[in-house]
């Protein structure tokens, strides 16, 4: 395991320790401070991946998160992570990487036959083919395409790691830690402002670590280290490494992703894998730098072709020579540094191809490196297949020659990293002098500094950073003192790369978008077929749509389109960048709330007791409710629920009704207010009485129902359905604050304050009597049906007792403060034992309310009116109320509207199902014969057969008629008789008794 390409010295790696890793099962060694890419290059590994469409062999192009080629699967088992960029994956001991999108192996990929068909597989060919026969698309073509597409594989197992989110507020957020970012953070941090410095990389310093520059008398990397040390000593500065800022949102909200544990084999105990930061910043400084762009030429994707700036990063930061014999191809002066650094590292620079005329900077560098210089020339073609063997160079006069080389360093100018300036829709502006898009309008509060705004000189970047950091701090009210911008060594010459945009020689495939295999000729084809808008170009060819989001290709692609169509670059335009800046694991965006903790769980006061009883629970919104309480020997919910109903109807049962919404309403105008929100009147309700109320939406449709009790002259207690409690409260607040602010009325949600138990059944009065304290009379005379009173139970616990019944039996609802809820249910059970009490759950409750024809959620489904529900007569004519006027619309008065009736099977042994549709007897089921639908069904122990509620056209007029309940999705088709929706005690004698 020799690191054949590791330089003898230099770099920000820890040479003292060596760490092992595997790639495609082979073992290699690297050092802490390496990325997977630098370690692979150090070991002489050039072939690291296969391209998306043609499965072409690919190597490392860049040294950052813009990498289009070097994608691998990291780790294994449930932690397998597809499409990891080797250029950002930090090396750790035991790292496992596997190449992807190849079969059977990286070196021999059978899918590479796609290359043979590549003349057919041009941009957009799918749209022109695969149409015959039509059925073959889903069966044959699409599965084939899908298998070939995609890159890495998911494990298919649940992600075993955890994630965390955190919110941070600051005065100044600095994005990027190159010279501009460090300077900005220093200026702001020294002022005392709260500063967050977020850097994507694990090393701070940006290009300071990649280039051999001097700041004052220090190397640029040493200066960066000192700046970081100072920042870390400032109490209000937070330095976040491995943390790209990924999104900019309205009003200074930024999302950043901290890769907490990705540089370790697995996260430490209780540590998340990643942490999503929501940063709320008053100001921000974007110092994200600039990325170099390639120059397309034939075979420019051969492993060994690399961006010139990345070559420097590997040499200087990682102490790795990405090649031994290099050709440099540039259209600007920046490559001079690459030539010099290669030479300094002992690599041979065989040729320098300057696409421009003779430019002194490259001329001098080439001469110093003893490289032959070709100006006005180009690379015609690179060759070598799985690793670069050489290239053909043409000079400006038509001559050409071949040179052997194992590295081509390409420098086509710079693209400022302005993506984050456009997340809030601003358009970038083209700058002809810099040949680059610069930030247009900035998001409110954001400044851009350094290479990200086109200040490419190191000195300029430092100066801009200090200036922006100070300005940002000052805008937040801090005094930033003057700074001396340190002096720097000589800047390179003209680094702008104003073209040419591609090699003029067309030989072989010249890639623009490496990852999505989009070539120069694809761009030409798109233009030919009319896809000339950059957005059409993108979507037709997929240019810029891969995991790198075209960070090395977008500008190039549109520049080529501009050239081909004879338009200027600004006329041609640029595609929009979108969040995230760099791809983010979905697990991190989801955070900690997974599995059972996806949403909060609300537990009513009897929950622990119910668990002890072996209750089976059901999720109702956020609540857990006991569905039924199985007893030994009962084989399913049905038996238990039927037994519970029978017990209530013949003896007594208890149900925890605490999940109902409960609202305390007070104020001089409480009665008037309720008159306006309910269809019926409440101001006339006597103190100590409860009344059923129905609320409509303003459009006349039923919104919610419940009972409201008048506890005092100006004091009411409202109950709502469990599901709508929040919505009703919001509605009441709106009515009070917005519609009728003149009214004196106040609400307090007391849902959680009271544990409320329904005690129902012929023996319920006896149970209640055993619980209330002496002196309180619960007789029918003292507390009649719909009566309510405040009293004490069990020796002084204050309580409210309501004579309400949802089950249709003699029944009470007893409310005690929630802390006593657990003890109360135990006391009720105990007091009820002599009378045969049992607890009943939501299933039994549902059966009983259906037996009584009470509407609930399935009937109040957002489309039904009071009249549909059989409550049309409740609508007061004496007052205005929400929904009154709109209830008078034509369709609401249509006699054909389905309205609520009951159903029983003609064959009494037949089962009914909710969701069945009603079809007239003897007619074929069809849309035209669809007359309504079943909303609720239950087996009624009292009747000995199934019963149902449902909406049927002209239902109330059709009593006794037989219709079909048609349920094809469950294979049901049952004849049912239309009956009254009240199946038990229609006169209501029991509940009044």
């Amino acid at each position, binding site marked *: 395991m020799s690191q054949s390409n590791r330089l003898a010295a230099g770099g920000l790696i820890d040479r003292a320790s060596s760490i092992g890793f595997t790639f495609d099962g082979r073992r290699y060694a690297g050092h802490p401070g390496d990325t997977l890419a630098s370690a692979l290059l150090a070991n002489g590994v050039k072939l690291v991946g296969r391209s998306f469409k043609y499965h072409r062999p690919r190597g490392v192009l860049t040294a950052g998160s813009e990498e289009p080629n070097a994608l691998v699967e990291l780790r294994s088992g449930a932690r397998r992570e*597809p499409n990891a960029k080797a250029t950002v994956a930090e090396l750790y001991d035991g790292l496992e990487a596997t190449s992807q999108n190849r079969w059977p192996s990286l070196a021999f990929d059978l899918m590479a036959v796609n290359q043979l068909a590549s*003349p057919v597989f041009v941009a957009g060919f799918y*749209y*022109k*083919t695969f*149409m015959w026969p*039509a059925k073959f698309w889903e069966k044959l073509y*699409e599965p084939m*395409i*899908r*298998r070939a*597409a*995609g*890159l890495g*594989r*998911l494990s*298919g197992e649940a992600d075993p790691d955890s994630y965390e989110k955190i919110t941070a507020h600051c005065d100044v957020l600095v994005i990027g830690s190159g010279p501009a970012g460090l300077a900005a953070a220093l200026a702001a941090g020294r002022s005392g402002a709260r500063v967050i410095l977020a850097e994507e990389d694990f090393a701070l310093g940006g290009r300071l670590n990649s280039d051999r520059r001097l700041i004052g008398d220090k190397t640029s990397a040493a200066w960066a280290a000192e700046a970081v040390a100072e920042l870390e000593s400032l109490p209000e500065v937070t330095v976040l490494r491995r943390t790209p800022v990924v*999104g900019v*949102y309205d009003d200074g*909200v930024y*999302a950043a992703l901290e890769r907490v544990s990705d540089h370790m084999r697995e996260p430490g105990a209780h540590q998340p894998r990643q942490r999503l930061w929501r940063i709320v910043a008053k100001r921000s400084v974007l110092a994200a730098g600039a990325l170099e762009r390639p120059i397309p030429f034939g075979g420019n994707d051969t492993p060994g072709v690399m961006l010139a700036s990345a070559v420097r990063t590997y040499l200087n930061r990682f102490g790795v020579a990405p090649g031994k014999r290099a050709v440099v191809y540039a259209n600007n002066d920046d490559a001079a540094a690459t030539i010099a650094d290669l030479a300094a590292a002992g690599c041979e620079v065989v040729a320098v191809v300057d696409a421009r005329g003779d430019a002194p900077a490259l001329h001098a560098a080439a001469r110093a490196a003893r490289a032959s210089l070709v100006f006005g020339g180009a690379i015609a073609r690179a060759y070598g297949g799985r690793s670069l063997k050489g290239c053909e160079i043409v000079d400006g006069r038509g001559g050409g020659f071949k040179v052997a080389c194992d590295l081509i360093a390409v420098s086509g100018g710079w693209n400022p990293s302005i993506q984050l300036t456009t997340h*809030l*829709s601003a358009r970038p502006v083209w700058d002809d002098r810099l040949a680059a898009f610069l930030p247009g309008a900035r998001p409110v509060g954001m400044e851009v500094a350094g290479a990200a705004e086109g200040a490419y000189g190191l000195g300029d970047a430092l100066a801009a950073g200090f200036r922006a950091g100070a300005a940002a701090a000052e805008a937040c009210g801090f005094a930033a003192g003057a700074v001396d911008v340190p002096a720097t060594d000589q800047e390179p010459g003209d680094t702008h790369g104003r073209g040419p945009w591609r090699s003029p020689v067309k030989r072989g495939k010249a890639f623009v978008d490496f990852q999505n295999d989009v070539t120069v000729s694809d761009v030409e084809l798109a233009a*030919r*077929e*009319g896809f000339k808008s950059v*957005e*059409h170009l993108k979507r*037709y060819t997929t240019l810029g749509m*891969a995991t790198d989001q075209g960070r090395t290709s977008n500008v190039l692609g549109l520049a080529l389109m501009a050239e081909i169509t004879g338009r200027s670059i600004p006329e041609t335009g640029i595609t929009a960048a*979108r*969040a995230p800046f760099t*791809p983010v*694991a*979905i*697990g991190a*965006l*989801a*955070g900690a*709330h*997974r*599995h059972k903790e996806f*949403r909060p*769980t609300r537990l009513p006061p009897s929950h622990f007791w119910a668990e002890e009883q072996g209750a089976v629970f059901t*999720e*109702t919104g956020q609540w857990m409710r006991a569905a039924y309480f199985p007893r030994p020997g009962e084989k399913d919910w049905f038996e238990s629920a039927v037994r519970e109903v029978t017990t209530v109807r013949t003896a007594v049962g208890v149900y925890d009704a605490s999940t109902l919404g409960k609202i305390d309403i007070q104020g001089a105008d409480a009665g008037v207010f309720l008159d306006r929100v309910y269809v019926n009147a409440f101001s006339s309700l006597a103190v100590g009485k409860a009344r059923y109320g129905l609320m409509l939406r303003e*459009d006349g449709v039923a*919104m919610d129902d419940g009972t409201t009790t008048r506890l005092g002259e100006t004091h009411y207690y409202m109950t709502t359905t469990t599901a709508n409690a929040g919505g009703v409260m919001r509605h009441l607040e709106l009515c009070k604050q917005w519609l009728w602010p003149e009214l004196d009325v106040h609400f307090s949600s007391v849902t959680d304050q009271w544990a409320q138990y329904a005690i129902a059944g012929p023996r319920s009065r006896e149970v209640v009597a055993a619980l209330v304290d002496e002196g309180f009379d619960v007789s029918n005379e003292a507390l009649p049906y719909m009566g309510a009173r405040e009293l004490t139970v069990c020796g002084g616990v204050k309580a409210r007792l309501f004579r309400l019944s949802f089950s249709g039996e003699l029944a009470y609802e007893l409310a005690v403060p929630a802390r006593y809820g657990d003890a109360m249910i135990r006391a009720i059970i105990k007091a009820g034992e002599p009378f045969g009490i049992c607890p009943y759950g939501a299933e039994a409750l549902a059966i009983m309310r259906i037996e009584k024809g009470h509407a609930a959620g399935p009937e109040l489904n*957002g*489309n039904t009116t009071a009249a549909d529900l059989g409550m049309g007569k409740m609508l007061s004519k004496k007052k205005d109320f929400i929904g009154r006027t709109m209830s008078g*619309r034509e*369709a609401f008065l249509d006699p054909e509207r389905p309205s609520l009736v009951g159903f029983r099977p003609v064959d009494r042994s037949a089962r009914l*199902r*909710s*969701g069945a549709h009603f079809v007239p007897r003897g007619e074929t089921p*069809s*849309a035209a014969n*669809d007359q309504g639908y079943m909303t609720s069904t239950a087996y009624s122990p009292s009747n000995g057969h199934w019963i149902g509620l449902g909406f049927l056209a002209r239902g109330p007029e059709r009593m006794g008629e037989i219709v079909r309940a048609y349920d*094809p*999705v469950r294979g049901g088709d049952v004849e049912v008789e239309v009956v009254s929706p009240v199946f038990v005690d229609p006169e209501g004698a029991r509940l009044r008794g």
Partner: protein
Amino acid sequence: MSTDNYSIFSVLREALRGHTGWKPAWRDAAPKAAYDVVIVGGGGHGLAAAHYLAKEFGVTNVAVVEKGWIGGGNVGRNTTIIRSNYLLPGNIPFYEHSMKLWEGLEQDLNYNAMVSQRSVINLFHSDGQRDAYARRGNAMRLHGVDADLLDVAELKRILPMLDYENARFPVKGALRQKRGGTVRHDAVAWGYARSADGRGVDIIQNCEVTGFRIEGGRILGLETSRGFIGAKKVALACAGNSSRVAAMAGMRLPIESHVLQAFVTEGVKPFIDTVCTFGAGHFYISQSDKGGLVFGGDIDGYNSYAQRGNLPTVEDVCEGGMALMPAIGRVRLLRSWGGIMDMSMDGSPIIDRTPVEGLYLNAGWCYGGFKAVPAAGHCLAHLIARDEPHPVAAAYRLDRFATGRTIDEKGMGAQPNLH
């Protein structure tokens, strides 16, 4: 020589000569002085209407004017789901008509839009939801549309990656429409444009409508950024912007503009081969042919014309995703974007005449108008050509809000952000 018909043979022929013979898929037309019909909006609906006007109704003196580039609106940014699994009688026949048109689309257009009937699966988590889905499935069957209810055992076979064991809201089954699926969204716009263009329709890009010329209650033409264009009839198909354009004709609509975000991950090998919606969270997902998981959730919930949303919705959608499919934790979100939609007051669309004679409206498609593209185009063309609504779109009237014949699938009432 040029290549007109698309087929494997024409592709092979072109391959031999470097693909130099292809013609533009549609001409980049400049506006003429006047047309019989001008359609505002080069999205799916506008382009489909132009195609059907020309092909089915013989009306070819037609222009589609688009303020940007065609397909740049919602047709180019939706999550590509097609289905006809609706509940209400006003909707089912319409969407089924659309489904049938999708089923023959490629042959009709000579363009592969990759209609993929890979099935749409709506999960339920409670008995109440199951019954509501049964009601819907039965309604579909009564209309002759395919629907079936799946139990958990069947679901586990089709969607093994769901969290069945440890979920906060356990999956209890699903409603499936096998004929539902996805379509390659951009190709729909391009395919209709190419076909309409081939039949003589002018597709005019970078031409923004800025006003209408109306005299005596009759439309005469429209003002655009490229000058006045005369028209006997004008139809609006400018999803998301309907209110603004209608306001130029003096109308107020029962519509708010809202942003819906959508998301795509990095490409991965086949993971899920159906469309799946999560009834207890705000999440739905499918996988594109390129391998990206395409997913979304609820709208952000406030009026917006900004084509982008905010972070809480992103988080909410991803939470829903992880709750349903904990295996997607390590796939990376690649890109998020937003689209502006006409959210109508009952969640259903409008295809109708307007108080201005000769001015027709196609609007209010909410987040569901992609699947409607063929039928909406066809029905709009029918309305324009015949001046009466197509029977399957007869419920989509403007006056339904006044009469109370609203079509409210979700039962949310007049609150657009809840539909």
